[in-house]
């Protein structure tokens, strides 16, 4: 960077900063503490619903229907017995009774909405009437009694697949809870109950259900993140220690880390934005990013101090800052843009806020890097860093980087050929990319809840619910037998769709009631063709049911009904097919002006936010690329230079797509954010390299190789530690127990590695080969003349290239 005789505005500013070190350090600490003071007020939002905006029509409709039908995501205990009698064994059935009684006593469980074989009644028709009796009346003590209950279930279609496995190997206790926000504690209570229950040989007990899964998920990720974040901090401190081997070189970047984290989470708390499941990844990212800027500043500072022992400490600081503020501000701005585009892309609220608060953190990191670091350095005495020996006597890291870089500029064609091949492979992988998500896949396969979910969904109809809400135009419209026939046909269709184990609706109850008043004859298991009879059957049922018994199936004025389809998988790819085919059926065969159907329920809501993953991902990535490019172009005053800074971004994003495509990693909630984040981080490498090449080409002397030999041990070394801090930071996530965090950490680490290699190998190779004018390369005749004089061998290669 050229030194002018008149102090620049930057010099003025940094002179002022170094003139008020105590005040500025104090203000910095106070600001950090006041931001941190808000953090205890952070609230959590652990629900799956947090991923979909409150005003999204799918969510609004589901909430309305939830109100009408009183549906919730339940907790489920499965009792599985693979023995010859299945669960219909006296001891197992007694266990069902015992567990049901205990579940009703768990705080937050609604004891009136616990359903199991122990709570349900059998309804059978007799010669003169109808017998409604509890399945467990009396509680079976002999195999004959247990067999009788099995026979009763075998003759009662409503409970098959939903309450008892069709092969009789399992039965469920389904419990609804009063407050979904307390589901984490409730899950722990369920697990304690299972743990404390004496084992019966051959009987397995599992806890699952959507309520349990979402309740436990946050806790699971939260515990993991609180374990990992300190490790990330320690790893990064170690990197700093190796990079500088000075006390302040290690401590000061950590202060910037603290300020960044405090700013992001403090404003989050102050703004009333809750902490979502994915916010857990934010701390690691902030830690990784916040050290980047101090690494560059301190590398320059120690290098300058060593090269110019004659300068005063203050002059070293002012010159360091004057020479580094611009590329650092540029990189911060481009990173900021990457995160803001995540916010602006209008995707799921947790991702938007992730982008917003990461952007706020980045700005805090910049502010502290620009003001706090120089002010704080003024308060300590300058001490040479044993690790930084200057551009001419690089340490082993500088030498290693230089070796890589020099190899690249010696063999630029080879490097570009390899880059091209890798890019093509990456591109091919990108075409294999699958978009998928399943809540249960957030858990490791050896987690009890993962095993429980798989075990239950294997034997039961499914614990993932898709609701189909039927609406008629008039009160008591659903007493119309024709409508009921249409609903029945719809249920039969739904049952043919992949993963759908069974459906339940009020039609099933009507058929069962009709059969029960007709001496239990099988042929009477049908919809009666008399409106009044249907109304009277409901009254008959109310003789033994709760007032809200049909709440989940039909609304209070018999205008709307709900069909609940049980699906044995929560995979987006499966349920997308179900929803698309169902939509088509409804449009072509079901909906009329007098009766219509709409989809709702957890499966439909999840489908609606999951289908935005792809668009959100590509929109936010596109936005990040375009804005970063324009930003870099503006900063470097050249559209082409802007594009050149994107080389590490393209390389890393393309390669990560390839890794994902070939290794079968889904583009899911966690992984979909990698591109925008990687763009924000990778572009830093591009900006630093571009700026330095340009500076060296404009102000340095000698051949391209000679000039580059200054870049690798200084900027290249700083980039290496930048890469080391970030990739080790993100890499730590790979020892997480949460699979999405492992994948996210892995992908960002790959992106960082590629970015680093691209910035010190591909970019110099491209510069050498294409000699762009925006990097300061002179016109060819001038250069040939100059370089022929300096370097005959090189000029020959240029002439050959020209030919």
């Amino acid at each position, binding site marked *: 960077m050229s030194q002018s005789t008149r102090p620049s505005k930057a010099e003025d500013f940094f002179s002022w900063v170094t003139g008020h070190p105590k005040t500025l350090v104090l203000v910095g600490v106070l600001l950090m503490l006041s931001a941190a003071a808000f953090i205890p007020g952070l609230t959590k939002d652990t629900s799956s619903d947090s991923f979909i905006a409150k005003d999204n029509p799918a969510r609004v409709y589901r909430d309305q229907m939830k*109100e*009408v039908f*009183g549906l919730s995501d339940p907790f489920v205990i499965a009792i599985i017995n693979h023995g010859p009698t299945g669960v219909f064994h006296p001891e197992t059935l007694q266990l069902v009774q015992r567990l049901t009684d205990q579940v*009703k*006593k768990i*705080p937050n*469980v*609604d*004891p*009136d909405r616990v359903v199991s074989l122990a709570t349900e009644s059998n309804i059978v028709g*007799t010669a*003169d*009437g*109808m*017998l*409604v*009796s*509890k399945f467990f009346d009396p509680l079976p003590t002999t195999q004959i009694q247990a067999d009788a209950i099995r026979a009763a279930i075998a003759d009662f279609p409503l409970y098959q697949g939903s309450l008892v496995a069709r092969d009789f190997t399992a039965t469920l206790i389904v419990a609804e809870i*009063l407050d979904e926000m307390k589901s984490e504690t409730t899950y722990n209570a369920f697990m304690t109950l299972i743990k404390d229950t004496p084992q019966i040989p051959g009987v397995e007990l599992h806890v699952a259900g959507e309520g349990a899964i979402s309740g436990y998920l946050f806790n699971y990720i939260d515990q993991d993140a609180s374990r990992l974040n300190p490790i990330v901090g320690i790893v990064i401190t170690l990197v700093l220690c190796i990079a500088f081997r000075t006390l302040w070189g290690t401590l000061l970047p950590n202060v910037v880390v603290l300020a960044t984290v405090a700013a992001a989470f403090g404003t989050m708390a102050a703004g009333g934005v809750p902490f979502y499941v994915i916010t857990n990844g934010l701390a690691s990212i902030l830690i990784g990013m916040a050290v980047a800027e101090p690494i560059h500043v301190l590398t320059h500072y120690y290098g300058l101090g060593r090269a110019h022992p004659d300068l005063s400490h203050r002059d070293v600081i002012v010159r360091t800052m004057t020479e580094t503020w611009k590329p650092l501000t540029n990189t911060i701005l481009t990173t900021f843009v990457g995160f803001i585009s995540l916010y602006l892309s209008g995707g799921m609220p947790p991702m938007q806020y992730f982008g917003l608060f990461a952007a706020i953190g980045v700005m805090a990191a910049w502010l502290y890097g620009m003001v706090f670091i120089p002010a704080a350095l003024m308060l300590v005495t300058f001490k040479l860093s044993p690790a930084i020996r200057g551009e001419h006597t690089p340490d082993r890291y500088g030498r290693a980087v230089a070796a890589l870089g020099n190899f690249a500029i010696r063999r630029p064609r080879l490097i570009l050929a390899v880059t091209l091949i890798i890019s093509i492979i990456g591109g091919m992988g990108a075409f294999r990319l699958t978009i998928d998500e399943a809540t249960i896949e957030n858990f490791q396969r050896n987690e009890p809840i993962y095993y429980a979910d798989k075990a239950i969904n294997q034997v039961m109809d499914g614990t993932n619910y898709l609701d189909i809400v039927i609406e008629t135009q008039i009160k*008591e419209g659903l*007493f119309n037998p024709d409508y009921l026939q249409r609903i029945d046909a719809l249920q039969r269709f739904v049952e043919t769709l992949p993963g759908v184990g069974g459906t339940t609706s009020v039609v099933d109850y009507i058929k069962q009631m009709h059969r029960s*008043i007709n001496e239990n004859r099988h042929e009477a298991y049908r919809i009666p063709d*008399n*409106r*009044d*009879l249907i*109304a*009277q*059957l409901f*009254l*008959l049922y*109310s*003789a*033994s*049911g*709760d*007032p*809200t018994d049909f*709440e989940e199936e039909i*609304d*209070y*004025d018999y205008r709307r009904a709900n069909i609940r389809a049980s699906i044995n998988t929560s995979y987006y790819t499966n349920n997308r097919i179900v929803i698309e085919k169902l939509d088509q059926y409804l449009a072509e065969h079901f909906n009329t002006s007098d009766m219509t159907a709409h989809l709702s329920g957890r499966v439909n809501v999840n489908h609606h936010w999951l289908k935005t993953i792809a668009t959100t991902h590509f929109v936010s990535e596109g936005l990040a690329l375009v804005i970063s490019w324009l930003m870099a172009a503006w900063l470097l005053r050249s559209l082409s230079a802007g594009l050149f800074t994107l080389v590490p971004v393209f390389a890393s994003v393309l390669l990560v797509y390839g890794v994902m495509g070939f290794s079968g990693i889904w583009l899911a909630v966690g992984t979909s954010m990698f591109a925008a984040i990687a763009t924000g981080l990778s572009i830093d490498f591009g900006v630093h390299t571009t700026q330095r090449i340009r500076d060296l080409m404009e102000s340095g002397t000698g051949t391209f190789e000679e000039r580059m030999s200054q870049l690798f041990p200084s900027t290249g070394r700083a980039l290496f530690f930048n890469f080391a801090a970030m990739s080790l930071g993100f890499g730590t996530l790979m020892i997480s127990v949460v699979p999405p965090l492992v994948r996210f950490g892995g992908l960002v680490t790959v992106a960082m590695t590629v970015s680093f290699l691209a910035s010190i190998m591909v970019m110099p190779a491209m510069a050498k080969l294409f000699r762009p004018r925006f990097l300061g390369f002179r016109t060819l005749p001038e250069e040939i003349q100059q370089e022929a004089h300096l370097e005959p061998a090189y000029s020959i290669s240029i002439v050959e290239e020209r030919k």
Partner: protein
Amino acid sequence: MQPKMRHMLLVLSLLFPLFACNAGAEALPAGDEIAHRINARNEGEMVSRLVTMVMTDRGGTERVRETKSFRKYFGKEKRTVIFYLSPANIKDTAFLTYDYPETDRDDDQWLYIPAARKVRRISASDRGDYFLGTDLTYEDIRKEAKVGVEDYSWKTFGEETIDGHRCFLVEEIPVSDKTAKELGYGKVQSWVDAEIWMVRQAKFWDVAGNPLKTTQFMDIKPIQDIWTSHRLISENHKTGHKTEFIFKDVDYSRNVKDELFTEDGLRRGF
């Protein structure tokens, strides 16, 4: 004032509310006594009345059912029949129940379904089961204005005024877990009118201790010298469901024919 004296006064003033409380507690009748006095009330040998049942779900949607109901004692056996008058699609549906005095004998119940022209015998309901889609349980209905002396341990713990009437505040705890489970209640609090020994309000908790429902007996006035509630509101706090019973044309003196309480009676109507 001497410091010692002041100290004594302070102690006395602190103790006074305790004395006052004890004095008040002595004046209250025991819980069991209150229960017996409630059950000793005359409720007539027979009664006929128009009952409007208004059931409202938590969204505010109403179901209104007009019925004509008769009740008659056959010795200690109580028989009740309800004929539905409206809405039209359940008109003439009728529900008959025999409630036997023997505690170990299940009730008998029948329902006449006019659309199928069939009388169906329905197996006995559990005491805690809800009655015909209302918020009252079979036990609540069976007891009418009476209470289950043997099901609960009774304790009086205060006095309060409801609608200007002095009431004893009574707490009822089921005698065993089994009884609690059968009734569906873990605890009940009743406000019992101190003059006419009728419950004016009762609060119920479920077996896990969550607030369950509140029932109010209103518009209490004497009909043929029998104190009768003409309006009952029961509101479930967990489901938001509400039931209102409005009693009209209550008549304890009109003769109610025995034939009404038969299967044929159900078919014929009243």
